[in-house]
């Protein structure tokens, strides 16, 4: 099936006007599958890290949200061991007016501003709430170890 105009346009724009700290490159053999890299935001526990993600645009896109997953191991209350992300716009708050770019920006924001009250990784969230300092130290450690 031919690629919808929307996906072509988005891809072109991602290439032509890249967002600082975010890159998304489609696979040559599957233009719905993107290799993504997000830099850890300055001032966060993930600063200096480069996190790899995969992003897939399902058949229903943009009526359904893209599927996004972290490939790099990360210590974050809203991201689990398998790299799955708990983010409202990837689920019930999805709107077809969102784009790949806005999704990736939201993920970057999630890295600066973890939300332990709506956790996906329960043990991490628990640590984040009871001993924030230690949690941030672990997150930094993981960034050093896995994201560089």
């Amino acid at each position, binding site marked *: 099936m031919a690629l919808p105009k929307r996906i072509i*346009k*988005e891809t072109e724009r991602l290439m032509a006007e890249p967002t600082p700290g975010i890159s998304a490159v489609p696979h040559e053999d599957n233009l719905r599958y993107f290799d993504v890299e997000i830099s850890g935001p300055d001032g966060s526990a993930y600063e200096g890290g480069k996190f790899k993600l995969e992003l897939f645009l399902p058949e*229903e896109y943009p*009526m*359904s949200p893209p599927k996004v997953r972290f490939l790099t191991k990360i210590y974050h209350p809203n991201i689990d061991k398998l790299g799955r992300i708990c983010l409202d716009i990837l689920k019930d708050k999805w*709107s*077809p*007016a*969102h784009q790949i770019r806005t999704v990736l920006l939201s993920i970057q924001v999630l890295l600066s501003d973890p939300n332990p009250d709506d956790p996906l990784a329960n043990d991490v969230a628990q640590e984040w709430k009871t001993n924030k300092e230690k949690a941030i130290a672990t997150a930094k450690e993981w960034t050093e170890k896995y994201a560089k």
Partner: protein
Amino acid sequence: MSDIDFDEGDDDFLYDESGEDYLDESGEDYLDELDFTEIIQEKQERKKYEVEYKVYSIEEIEDFQNKEIEHVANIIGCFKEHAATLLRHFKWNKERLIELYMDRTEEVTKEAGVIVDAQKLPKLIKVEDFCCDICCDSGDDIESLALSCGHRFCKDCYSQYLTQKIKVEGECRNIQCPSDACNIIVDENTIKMLVSEDTYHRYTSLLIRTYVDDNIFLHWCPAPNCEYAVECKIHDSDLQRLVPTVKCKCGHQFCFGCGLPDHQPCICSLVAKWLNKCRDDSETANWISVNTKECPKCKASIEKNGGCNHMTCKKCKNEFCWVCMGPWSEHGNQWYTCNRFEEKTSVDARDSQSRSRAKLERYLHYYNRYANHEQSAKLDTELYEKTERKMERMQKSSELSWIEVQFLKEAVETVVQCRNTLKWTYSFAFYLQKDNQTTLFEDNQRDLEMAVEQLSELLEEEIKPNRIAELKQRVVDKSIYVKHRREILLEDTAQGLKESRWVFIDP
């Protein structure tokens, strides 16, 4: 009229204004379908075990909604579409909607996702140099649409979006503008304009469904393929004191409280407990009762499948004698024989054994009677089907008219109904403490049971054409008596529930 004093005044119920009309209608509607004897009963006062209710068809619910929408649209002076969105947001609580709307219009409309002072309803138009944010198509001759929020998308994307929401996600009253973080609700008219007929039909039926689901006083009739909804102003807290049995226009009789088929006079919480117990226990309990004894120490059920009388409980390692149930240590050297039946320790062990057995037997007593009535009701119905064919043949061969052979049908219906009631009296009695009240209840139960069995027996009698009039007389007399006994039992039980006269136990 009202024997049951629910505090209707406090309810934010939606039919407040028209409540009385509905009452009158319910009386008349009902009469159409009943025969004469029942009309007479209907005219009498409502019985203690009956509740007030009304059955609605989907069309009636739609009509009612349309009236409410029109009313609200007139009061606040807006499009009907917007009034509908507001009403749905307020779950059809018109009074609260109007009150809050007058106080805090802006807040209310924002929350509900409506812009009420919009000048016109959304329309498909062509806009110069338009580019759709969803599909990125652009040009001058693309049909597009925007809600009052102004977010414009092309027709194809819009209808695809709506179809996805309705068909895949099952959304209806909460479909928002496709734009990011815009909570303006897509109105019914717009949806009708943009989706296929099939999808629109699905949309409206979802709307009706949410309407019934949102309203605690409305329930769908649980019968398969039945599309009526029943309204009954019963709160969950009332269910300890009454059994709200309703009869749908499709004929299905069910409990409004829990949705299960008619289970008078047993209250919902006991029914749930009982069914749960029966599901787990009955067959197993029967087998245990026949084949096992309990370990005198830990009460584990033990089946002796061979070997000697020296038992060692696998669970607690207690050693005892299978014959006298006393401790094995007291058997001294007399291995494999037991002559110690009267020793105190073994008598105690047997006492405790029989207590736990008694508990099991008590349950089985009630369960077997419960199950028996359920089974008998089935057999009675089968018997009737056979009899009916016989009656048809007789009608052809004799002078009897159709109406004259109908008495059996009614009698069978009475028997089946009473067996159903009896069935649930056993579940009810299982949870009753043994006291004077319970004795009275059991007397009523026994009287009804005897009468039902007699009637059931009459139905089995061989039908001879020349004695049919006499049989009819006996069957009719007995049916009336049986119905009367059932009423007495139900009335008394309902009264007892109302007065909290019954003491329940957890056996």
